[in-house]
C-alpha cells in the first residue's frame, strides 16, 4: 500500500547560504515532489525568512498561482509594524491559496507572545488557521513553543523539524495538554519507534507527514511511514488525511 503523501514541510527558492540542489522555483519543486511520489505540498519560499517576510510572502503568492497541488504559508511579523498584518490579511490569504502561517521570531527579531500577537492570534485560533513552528531553521526554541501554547492553548500549531535527537520529552507533554498541537514527522520518523510509540499514546490524528526538503531526503520519512508498524488507516491519516482536514477546516 502506497499512501498519498501531502507534505507539510517543504520549501523552494535559493537560500542565503547554499544547500544541496534546492528547488529554485515552484515548478522545480513540483518536479522534485513528482519524483519522490509526493502528491501535494504546503510550501513556503526561503526568501520569506532569509530576505524579508513582506517581499517573500508576495514571491510565494505569485509562484503558487495556478499550481493546484500546492498551498502556501505566509510568514508573520508583529501586527504593530503594519509590515504583514493589515485589515484585509485573511482575505488576501484566501485569495492566494495561503492556508497556514509560519513564524521566525528569533531570526526576525521579535517576541512570539500575547503582548505582541494577542488579538491577531486569537483570531487565528478562532479561524483554525495552522501556525507552523520549526525547531530548526532559526525559527523557535522549546521554551517559546511552551510559552505561546500556554497563552493560546487552542491554537492550531504544527511543530516541524522537532529535533535530530529524540524529542519525546518535549513533545509528549504538549500532545497531552493541547488538543490542537500536531507533529510534523520528518524527524519523528528518524527516531526508532518514533511514529509507532507516538501513535500508540496520542493517536495517528496528531501526526502530519513532512519531508523537510531541501535539507533532507524525502524518501527517509516516506519509507518510515509507509512501513511503520501501525495500521494502514493510520498511515493514510499521517501521510495526507490529517493535513487535508486541517486545510479544509481553516476558515478564511
Amino acid at each position, binding site marked *: 500500500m*502506497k499512501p498519498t503523501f501531502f507534505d507539510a514541510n517543504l520549501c523552494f527558492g535559493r537560500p542565503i547560504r547554499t*544547500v*544541496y540542489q534546492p528547488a529554485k522555483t515552484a515548478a522545480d519543486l513540483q518536479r522534485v515532489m513528482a*519524483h519522490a511520489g509526493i502528491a501535494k505540498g504546503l510550501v513556503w519560499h526561503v526568501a520569506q525568512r532569509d530576505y524579508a517576510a513582506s517581499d517573500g510572502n508576495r514571491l510565494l503568492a505569485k509562484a503558487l498561482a495556478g499550481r493546484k497541488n500546492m498551498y502556501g504559508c505566509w510568514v508573520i511579523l508583529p501586527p504593530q509594524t503594519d509590515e504583514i498584518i493589515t485589515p484585509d490579511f485573511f482575505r488576501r490569504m484566501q485569495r492566494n491559496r495561503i492556508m497556514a502561517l509560519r513564524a521566525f521570531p528569533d531570526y526576525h527579531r521579535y517576541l512570539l507572545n500575547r503582548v505582541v500577537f494577542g488579538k491577531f492570534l486569537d483570531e487565528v485560533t478562532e479561524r483554525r488557521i495552522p501556525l507552523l513552528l520549526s525547531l530548526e531553521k532559526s525559527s523557535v526554541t522549546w521554551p517559546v513553543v511552551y510559552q505561546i501554547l500556554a497563552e493560546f492553548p487552542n491554537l492550531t500549531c504544527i511543530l516541524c523539524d522537532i529535533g535530530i535527537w*529524540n524529542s519525546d520529552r518535549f513533545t509528549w507533554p504538549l500532545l497531552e495538554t493541547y488538543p490542537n498541537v500536531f507533529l510534523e514527522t520528518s524527524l519523528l520518523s*528518524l527516531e526508532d519507534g518514533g511514529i509507532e510509540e507516538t501513535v500508540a499514546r496520542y493517536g495517528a490524528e496528531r501526526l502530519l507527514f513532512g519531508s523537510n526538503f531541501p535539507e533532507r531526503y524525502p*524518501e527517509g520519512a516516506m519509507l518510515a511511514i509507509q512501513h511503520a508498524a501501525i495500521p494502514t488507516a493510520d498511515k493514510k491519516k499521517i501521510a495526507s488525511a490529517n493535513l487535508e482536514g486541517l486545510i479544509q477546516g481553516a476558515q478564511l
Partner: protein
Amino acid sequence: MKKTTDLKKAFFARGRVPDCPIYDLHGHMGPSYGLHINRETAAQADTVLKRVGIRLLVFCHHAALMAPDIGNAANIKAVRAFPDRLRAYCGINPNYPDQVKKDVATFDRYTDVYVGFKLLADYHAIPITDPRNEPAWALAEARALPVLLHTWGNSVYDGQTVIRKVAERYTQAKILLGHSCHSCWDEAIQLVKDFPNVYLELCAVMDERGILERFVGELGSERIIFGTDYPWFSHHYYIGTVLGAVISDDDCRNIFYRNAEKILGGVFNAKSLTAK
C-alpha cells in the same frame, strides 16, 4: 535527476528486500541520558531487526560506554541472548585504563560476542591517540579488527587531525569513522584517499541531503558503510535516505551489505548467522 531504481521500488513496495540484506555497523543498546529511547532492550532490537530485514546489528551498549560500573557485561549479555542478529564492539573508556587492559586481555573469551572495539572519545574527553587506548589499538592492529570511532569534524578528541595520526600509526586495523568526521566532509574524503584501512560510516550523515552523493562521487562506494546509531535512529528512515540519494543500485548494495561483509569477513563468518 535519478531514475526510480529497482531497489528503491522494491524497498518501498515491501519494506525489505531479501537479496539486499542490511548490515548496520553502528548501533547501541540500553537507555541514554539525553533522550527517550523507545526500544532499549536486546529483545526489542531483535524484533525490529527481524521485521526490517537487518541481517546483523553491530552495537556497543550505552552502559559499556557511559557506565563503568556496568561496562561490557551489558554487551555480552545482549549478544548471547540474541546471537542470530547481534554482535558487539567491546567498549573502551580510557578514563579507566585498568578496565581497558582487563577487557582487552579477556577479549578472546568472547569471540562469539565481539567483532572489534568502539571508542567514544568526544564523550570520554580523551583523544583517540591517547596511550590509554593503546591496548585496544594493539589488538585491533594485530588481528585487523574493526575499530568504530565516534568522529566529529574539528574535535580535538576524534576530529580529522587525530584520525590522521591513528591511521598513520595503525595500518592493519579497520578504522571505521562513525559519522564520517561530521561536517568536515572534505577532510573525511581525504582520509579515505590517504589510508586504505579507513572507512566512512553514514550515521548522522544521512539527515543532510547531498553528502553521500559527494562521498560516492569522490571515492566510489566501496569504503562507505551503513550505520544508524540504532535505537536512536530508524532503519527505514536511513534506508530510505540512501535509496533517495542520487547514486546507483550497485552503490546502495555496497553500502548496505557488500562492504560490511568484507570488513567482518576476517572476524566472523556471515553464514554462521542462523537467522532467516
